């Protein structure tokens, strides 16, 4: 019981203080789980991050579920996930309420109009990071051009073509590249 309560409070804090997406949550989770409550070793935590990144879904939800399962089974997973989501739920509900109440005022529109180009740029920047990760298996700062991966490049161009020209479904594209790419690497894996 005490463990569950501790976990719940820890993940409420993670949910409350992680502003700016998944990667902002990682040090917070580490602090709560490894340092404050010593529920996990650093090695276990590294595994957690690896798994959270490899699976779909938000990193903090993935981490919450993983930590909960490891420490207290399915109920632990549920408690941690709920804790992680509650602050976001309440805060965003309030923000959504105000946004929809006031967004039709032209003054608010003028302010929001300046935000939108920045959001487009943020999405573009995230896309570039993933592209670089896909093509060079590294981040933008440490690109080694010798590591250029031709198969991924062809997949990217092909996928973009299908999306632009034929408006193909995005999820089909993502899983399609996964399957075709893995088949293309099969000779290398089996060697």
């Amino acid at each position, binding site marked *: 019981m005490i463990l569950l309560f501790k976990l719940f409070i820890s993940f409420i804090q993670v949910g409350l203080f992680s*502003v700016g997406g998944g990667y902002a949550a990682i040090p917070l989770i580490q602090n709560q789980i490894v340092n404050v409550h010593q529920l996990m070793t650093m090695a276990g935590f590294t595994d957690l991050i690896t798994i959270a990144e490899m699976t*779909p879904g938000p990193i903090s939800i993935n981490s919450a579920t993983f930590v909960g399962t490891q420490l207290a089974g399915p109920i632990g997973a549920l408690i941690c*996930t709920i804790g992680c989501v509650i602050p976001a739920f309440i805060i965003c509900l309030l923000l959504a309420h105000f946004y929809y109440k006031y967004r039709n005022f032209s003054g608010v529109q003028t302010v929001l109009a300046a935000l939108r180009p920045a959001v487009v740029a943020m999405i573009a920047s995230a*896309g570039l990071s993933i592209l670089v990760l896909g093509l060079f298996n590294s981040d933008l700062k440490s690109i080694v051009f010798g590591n250029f991966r031709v198969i*991924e490049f062809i997949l990217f161009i092909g996928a973009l073509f299908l999306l632009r020209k034929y408006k193909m479904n995005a999820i089909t594209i993502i899983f399609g590249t996964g399957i075709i790419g893995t088949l293309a690497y099969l000779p290398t894996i089996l060697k």
Partner: protein
Amino acid sequence: MKKKADKKMLWQLFCSTFMLSACTFGGGFVIVSLMKKEFVEKLGWLAEDEMLDVTAIAQSSPGPIPVNASVILGYRMGGILGSFVAVLGTIIPPFVIISVIAVFYEQFRSNVYIATALQVMRAGVAAVIFDVVLNLAKNVCATQRVLYIGLMGTAFFCAVVLNISAMIIILACLVIGIIDLLFNLYGNKGKVGVTE
């Protein structure tokens, strides 16, 4: 404004958020791109500008971006019940997947096929984001306002080259937006409601 929630719409909302969450590898902006495709292009529930506003709010509030965006989208479509349904759709897939993987994560982590599939999938994810970005950027350019096009370029430079966090960039643009508003008000002697 907020629509009245009906069962069919809530079910569609749940299915859409569930599918997106189950298939989204990578960070918050990936799911936002997919949400734009699903809710703006496919279902026509939201205007593109609205989706960008939702993204800005989701990015600047605490908590996971996909969850934040779901709360706002859900609220828009069906009030508090809609938010609840959308969040449920977003958190069930990772919850189930991780609960299963947590049991045998040793095998999962060291599986070479899974590792390869995840690596190559990035090419597909990047293509989806680029597709969305091309459409969005085209619309920003279509406003023909130097301020907006300049902000887009500057924000991209700040994020990619200077490594400034998205939150700070969005806050800075908020300030610029307020200044722009003040200029408008001043320029029109207090007449509210002038945008280009």
